[in-house]
């Protein structure tokens, strides 16, 4: 390990490379692009939660003047269910081909059934209305309990669980020790059941793309996604166009949070462009985003924890049922795998059940599944600590996972920073501060911890020295949170030059090597590895060039402060050769200077965080507000502290929304009743306090700069921290999210009614 010390740029709050374009309105997001001859695509969507599609007649739509192409599922490459899984990352193409366009059945309101391209958006919309779909409306279910009833309508008849057709489409478990024996040792056992509602990632930029297909099949895609290579591969699979013919250009992305790790529009627009011979632009409305793109699961979890009187957790059992939506694939891995991981629990069983129901297919959302599981576990731990009369942070410290702890999902932990996060939370000014007077409102404080796996995986980078001695770095990951700023810091640090001389761009699929999704908190971890190795190769080249010029051994040349210097025994014999000078001499000295590295990166350590939350509750109206918040996290090494803090603060804000107000509300007809920002109620600026961050830096020993993923952990503890704070304020525990005003009032009034009875 070669940790860089005495950093000049690593750890500095530099100006992000894409910042200027974004503050001046120049940045090109997917919906900002146009092409000559461009036409517009629109999607016809199912109005029914569950319906067999008997037939689709597009003839009237095709005859409408201005309509240039119509596509239905017949145009999409089929992946027959009986032929088995065709996986692309975590997505099974059998479900993807049915999600982008319903085949035999429409499985949720908003499920695409056809798409039209026309010369204007209005004509395309009008044409959609002229498409006649003959539906056989079927019974449906949305909530987990309904989907699990013995007589529940089955979404996928082929699926069997316990030998019977079922909506349970997957199960996994993590096991350690023997929970039966473990619970026998416990002096206190608490078991609770929790529910959470589906919530949306809530990115402000709707999905959008512009696609051109030339007569020879060469396809260019401009789109907003968390992975241009994912866009290329999925589009290739679903349209039959070879990947080598598809150039997917990553537009700036206006937020993703996991929700843009799959495609919705690109295969449809590609087929429309191919059929019409015209570039096709598609932009979702906010309503389409809310109805048809991936929220995360609603859930039902039961968590049982047993502890001894002295505060040791001896056994725990978690059962997590998560809504997958229309197709298999809910994040049970995160729920079952992350929830107990901050703790060293000798006897543990953590089970996840993947449940299909008639709502849109879930997509990843920031630490997928982990916040759902942590909500249940961390609330139960708060109760156990209270029953044991222990400070909740002391209780966590006593049971904390440390170096050498074996996690139930497999790994034995190397040096991790969980304990440090709890200690930092405990010694924070926030935890020491009195709650203060609520002026008639009740105040409370809660804490919670969280874990996320983090990820490595495939990344590619090309680093080139320009003819004038500056640097261009190309990586393959869409930048959703400031990763370009981190890369500029690292590259500048290694080369010993001003960070402003490093230009960082995101390459398209045909100009940079394969790079996996921006997701899993992997981007800076993985891309800085390939950028570091590329830059080190360049430095080696630069040393060789200087050695050649000086006619000394390359080993006797050192690279410092942006220049080659003769090292002992030649120290001081030659004037240093700067990057500019070596670039200028490059043509004569062996040619252009550049290096690319492609790796399947390994060694991404998990991330831990511990949060402290203060709330204030207006008991008459049931309104809970977060008035102070501190997020503590082991961030490995904060390459750009501003954007690390930004990840923490953004994750916390999303969690506060999830805890207090955000939820999908359904009508009696099974349709989303709040498909817009007005009634979906994400936190606005005046809803939140400042969000304090404490970055604990325990460098990742397997990474050249010590980087750990930071993006996902900060959402994991939040709902439990808020719930525990509300309990502290009210003396009553909530077992369901969101803790919205009518529900708070209902809860507060419930015992009074019981007493009166």
């Amino acid at each position: 390990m070669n940790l860089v010390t005495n950093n000049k740029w690593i750890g500095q709050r530099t100006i992000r490379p894409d910042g200027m374009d974004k503050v001046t309105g120049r940045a090109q997001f997917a919906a900002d692009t146009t092409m000559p001859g461009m036409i517009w695509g629109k999607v016809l969507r199912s109005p029914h939660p569950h319906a067999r599609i008997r037939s689709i007649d597009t003839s009237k739509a095709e005859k409408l003047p201005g309509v240039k192409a119509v596509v239905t599922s017949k145009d999409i490459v089929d992946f027959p269910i009986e032929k088995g899984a065709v996986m692309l990352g975590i997505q099974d193409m059998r479900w993807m081909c049915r999600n982008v366009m319903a085949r035999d059945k429409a499985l949720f309101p908003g499920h695409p059934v056809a798409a039209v391209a026309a010369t204007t958006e209005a004509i395309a919309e009008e044409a959609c209305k002229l498409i006649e779909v003959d539906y056989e409306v079927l019974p449906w279910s949305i909530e987990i309990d309904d989907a699990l009833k013995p007589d529940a309508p089955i979404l996928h008849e082929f699926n069997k669980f316990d030998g019977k057709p079922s909506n349970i489409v997957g199960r996994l478990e993590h096991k350690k020790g023997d929970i039966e024996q473990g619970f026998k040792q416990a002096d206190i056992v608490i078991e609770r059941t929790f529910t959470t509602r589906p919530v949306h990632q809530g990115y402000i930029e709707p999905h959008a793309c512009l696609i051109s297909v030339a007569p020879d099949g060469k396809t260019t895609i401009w789109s907003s996604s968390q992975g241009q290579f994912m866009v290329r591969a999925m589009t290739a699979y679903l349209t039959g166009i070879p990947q080598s013919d598809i150039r997917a250009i990553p537009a700036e992305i206006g937020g993703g949070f996991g929700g843009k790790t799959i495609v919705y529009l690109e295969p449809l627009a590609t087929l429309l462009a191919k059929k019409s011979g015209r570039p096709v632009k598609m932009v979702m409305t906010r309503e389409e985003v809310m109805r048809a793109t991936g929220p995360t699961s609603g859930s039902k979890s039961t968590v049982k924890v047993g502890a001894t009187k002295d505060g040791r957790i001896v056994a725990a059992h978690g059962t997590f049922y998560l809504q997958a939506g229309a197709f298999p694939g809910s994040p049970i891995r995160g729920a079952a795998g992350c929830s107990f991981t901050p703790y060293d629990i000798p006897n543990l069983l953590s089970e996840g059940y993947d449940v299909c129901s008639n709502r849109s297919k879930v997509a990843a959302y920031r630490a997928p599944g982990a916040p759902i599981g942590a909500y249940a576990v961390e609330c139960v731990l708060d109760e156990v600590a209270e029953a044991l009369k222990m400070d909740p942070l002391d209780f966590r410290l006593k049971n904390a996972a440390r170096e050498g702890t074996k996690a139930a999902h497999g790994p034995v932990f190397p040096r991790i920073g969980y304990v440090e996060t709890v200690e930092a939370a405990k010694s924070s000014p926030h935890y020491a501060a009195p709650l203060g007077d609520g002026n008639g409102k009740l105040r409370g404080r809660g804490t919670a911890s969280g874990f996320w796996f983090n990820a490595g995986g495939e990344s590619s980078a090309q680093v080139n020295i320009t003819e004038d001695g500056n640097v261009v770095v190309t990586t393959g990951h869409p930048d959703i949170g400031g990763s370009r700023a981190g890369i500029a810091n690292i590259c500048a640090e290694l080369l010993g030059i001003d960070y402003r001389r490093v230009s960082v761009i995101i390459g398209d699929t045909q100009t940079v090597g394969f790079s996996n999704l921006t997701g899993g908190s992997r981007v800076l971890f993985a891309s800085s590895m390939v950028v570091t190795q590329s830059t080190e190769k360049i430095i080696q080249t630069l040393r060789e060039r200087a050695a050649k010029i000086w006619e000394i051994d390359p080993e006797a040349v050192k690279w410092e402060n942006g220049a080659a210097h003769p090292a002992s025994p030649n120290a001081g014999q030659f004037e240093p050769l700067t990057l500019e000078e070596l670039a200028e001499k490059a043509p004569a000295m062996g040619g252009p200077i550049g290096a690319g590295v492609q790796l399947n990166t390994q060694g991404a350590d998990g991330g831990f965080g511990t949060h402290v939350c203060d709330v204030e509750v207006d008991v008459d109206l049931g309104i809970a507000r977060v008035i102070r918040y501190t997020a503590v996290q082991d961030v490995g090494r904060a390459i750009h502290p501003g954007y690390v803090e930004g990840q923490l603060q953004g994750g916390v804000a999303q969690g506060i929304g999830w805890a207090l107000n955000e939820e999908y509300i359904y009508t009696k007809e099974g349709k989303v009743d709040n498909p817009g920002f007005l009634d979906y109620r994400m936190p606005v600026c005046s809803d939140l306090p400042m969000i304090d961050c404490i970055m604990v830096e325990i460098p990742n020993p397997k990474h050249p700069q010590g980087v750990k993923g930071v993006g996902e952990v900060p959402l994991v503890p939040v709902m439990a921290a808020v719930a525990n704070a509300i309990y502290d304020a009210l003396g009553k525990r909530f077992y369901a999210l969101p803790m919205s005003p009518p529900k708070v009032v209902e809860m507060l009034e419930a015992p009074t009614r019981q007493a009166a009875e």
Partner: protein
Amino acid sequence: MTELRYLAPDTLDEAVGAFAKAGSAARILAGGTDLLVQMRSGVLKPGVIVDIKRIPELTAIEQTADGGFRIGAAVSGMALAEHETFGKVWPGVLEAVNLIGSKQVQGRASAGGNLCNGSPAGDSVPAMVAAGAIVTVQGPNGRREMKVEDVPAGPGRTNLKPGEILVSFTLPPRPPGSSDAYLRMIPRTEMDIAVVGCGVSLTMKDGTVTAARVGLGAVAPTVLLVEDAAKALIGSKLDDAALAKAASACSAACRPIDDKRGTIAYRIKVAGVLLKRTAAIAAQRATQKN
């Protein structure tokens, strides 16, 4: 696809003529913050839009000879906030108008549009009802006046006759010791539609309420004037018993629905809570002025 015509007349007579002629296909455009949303979502496809913002009377704020105010129907919340004296006399009406949407929306949205949109949850309406505002409307058959509480007919509907345009609100002169307040319950701090809204206007003398009006929003198909609540307040010193009685009157007046924004039980409870809080603020303002 129906063709849309946009008209921006300079006089009220022209506007009324065009609006009446176009019949049910026509819509009035003031701030447009409801109309454009309805058009974009496909709920409305008007054939004619009559923009009334070029008509001086509809964008004017005037102090009347008797000391009251006349506010043009298309005056935006921001413009009203910038008026020198209006907010001092009618702080409750002003805060209600400026709870409609964001600052961006307040730059456009008007009390006239809020009323004519016919939503039972419009924020300015309970405050206007509490204020005892009279509206002037003009149609093909000339001008008439209505009590503001008589304008809404139900969700999305008004009692304006075909071709009639809302011209202005007239707020009465204020006796000494008068003030008003508006509070609403929303789950967030901003940007929501009221789950319950409550406007209270009071006149006080030596700590005793001599006149009161209470308007309640989002708890029935139309905004309510709750006379029983006002009666409970009048003659009292806003003691706990009087406030409790007024709060009960508000809760009793509610005929709410369960919807995505709130439950029946919650709205009924909150109506009472808000009455107490709003009355306290109005009283504090009324006595401060003395």
